[in-house]
């Protein structure tokens, strides 16, 4: 399997505060990869670095074989088309309706006639499980779960091969979170996506994540499948998976 995202020896610092101390990991094609860790462990920062919103102090990140540090404008545009991002709070444009939010990149870049774009948009909106009438609503009129779905539809608008999700299930009720997990799984199989998700939802980790990396102490403490990670003896992992909530989950398994 090909490696889609490779992070090698990344160091990130905010002023005095060292966030990543030589972090390395790799995401393979077709898998759902979880980035885990407590609050402030730099998961979201690492994600931001992968999608070119932030530059690491040193080290390399390559996506689809392109090193993010020296990209031409053309390559950057190509990469941005190949990935979709779901931000934690949705980040839908509040002045546009859901349909316009989904359509905006297609309108801007594809040159397709409006009627075809409309068809694509309606399809994507259904695909993420939103009702048809949601298309004409504004983000302020949506519930939390609908915002996530609408934002996922926008991320999928241009058929990305790689999907970045920043805490996709945070702020959703357990039923909504489970439905969203199932949706991601279905979409992955249907669209042959590679998914990188930042999460600390133990349920998501148990049910949909194929491989994961646990960040802590400014490093990657463990990387691999859940079973491999569970065998690590690092205190952060013990706490995470064998704490009150984790124990409950480990006992029941998948």
């Amino acid at each position: 399997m090909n490696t889609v995202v490779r992070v090698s020896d990344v160091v990130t610092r905010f002023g005095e505060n060292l966030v990543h101390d030589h972090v390395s990991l790799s995401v393979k094609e077709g898998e759902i990869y979880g980035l885990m860790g407590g609050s402030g462990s730099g998961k979201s920062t690492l994600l931001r670095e992968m999608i070119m919103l932030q530059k690491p102090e040193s080290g390399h990140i390559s996506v689809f074989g392109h090193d993010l540090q020296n990209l031409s404008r053309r390559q950057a545009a190509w990469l941005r088309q190949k990935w979709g991002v779901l931000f934690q709070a949705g980040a839908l444009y509040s002045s546009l309706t859901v349909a316009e939010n989904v359509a905006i990149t297609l309108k801007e870049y594809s040159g397709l006639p409006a009627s075809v774009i409309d068809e694509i948009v309606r399809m994507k909106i259904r695909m993420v499980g939103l009702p048809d009438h949601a298309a004409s609503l504004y983000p302020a009129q949506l519930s939390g779960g609908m915002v996530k779905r609408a934002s996922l539809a926008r991320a999928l608008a241009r058929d990305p091969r790689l999907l970045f999700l920043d805490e996709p299930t945070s702020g959703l009720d357990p039923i909504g979170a489970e439905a969203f997990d199932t949706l991601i799984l279905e979409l992955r199989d249907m669209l042959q996506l590679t998914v990188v998700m930042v999460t600390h939802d133990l349920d998501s980790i148990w049910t949909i994540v194929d491989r994961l990396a646990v960040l802590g102490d400014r490093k990657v403490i463990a990387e691999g499948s859940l079973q491999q990670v569970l065998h690590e003896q690092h205190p952060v992992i013990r706490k995470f998976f064998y704490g009150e909530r984790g124990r409950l989950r480990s006992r029941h398994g998948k």
Partner: protein
Amino acid sequence: MKGDELQAGIKTLRQEDGLLIRGYGEWRADVLGKLAGEFERKLARLRNEKLSWDISAVSGLDSSGMVLLLHYLDMLEAQGCQVALTGLGQDQRKLREMIEAYAAPAVTATPPRGSRLYSLLVHAGEAVVAAGRDLVSFLSFLGENFSVLLLLLVQPWKMRWGAIVKNIEEAGVRALPIITLTSFLIGVVIAYQGAVQLQKFGANIFVVDMIAISVTRELAPLITAIVVAGRTGSSYTAQIGVMKITQEIDAMRIMGFEPHRFLVLPRVIAVMIALPLMIFFADIIGIVGGMVVANVHLNISWSEFVHRLQNVLEVKHVWIGIAKGPFFAWLIAMVGCFRGFQVSRNTESIGRYTTVSVVNAIFLVIACDALFSVVFTRLGI
């Protein structure tokens, strides 16, 4: 890479049993626009034909491309053609099934009925109703504010004095540089305008009267109030609006901290204290500005200017200007806070209400100033 872009498209071949359309090349996302144009050119005029569309030579077909393809297949069928799509790979067949599973019918929006006149009336009516509703909510805001104020007058130790001092620094002290600059320039402008006219009559010295009275009575209060409305009124709207979006206001309410006591009154009182002081400051700077021009342009020496100033500038003019301060301040701060509370859930409304708040505040300040002029003239002050 360049070659593929040119090579994506379709070829049409006439055969004995109908027309064969053969797709070729890489139908990637960035060539779809061109492809749509080619479909339109080559397929729009086909009527009642038997077609066979072969896409076995097409690679890189994504869901957008498939939707485009299906869109034109539907169009051809609507034109009475019989179309057979052949050469789909396994992935492409899956893609097609998926798209057909999720295809949603177009929602046809019914166009609004009625003439232009009708819609004009509707808009006018809606605007009036909205303005009425605005007024009612402003009055209820005022009522809440006064009830909290009365409570605080009885129990003054509950007032947030620290917040008032902080707001005075923010709205007053930090605005001094910009007030200095604008009022100095106003003094300069008045002096120049007066100088040209007065020189014609050799009445140079009257420029002092003109500067002293116009600056202290009208210009300094007005300019200072406008600067404060733009600077402080807008920031109050934005601050309170953001607090509303992040639910800080709700949090305060459930903890029993009335937003009026903690947010509104400290701001209103702070501006009411700061603005008169700033007006006095602007008076001085404005007159100095005029003095500089009078000296340079009209050859009125410093001592001559000051001597004349002492004779013509009655203290009442200064007091009138300063007395307007609290009124202007109250309008600016109340409107700023009120509009902040009107911000609703989305971020866009912060921008809208901030604009509205500044426009309202400046209008109200000028209207209030006009009212003062009428009243003072009637009273003969």
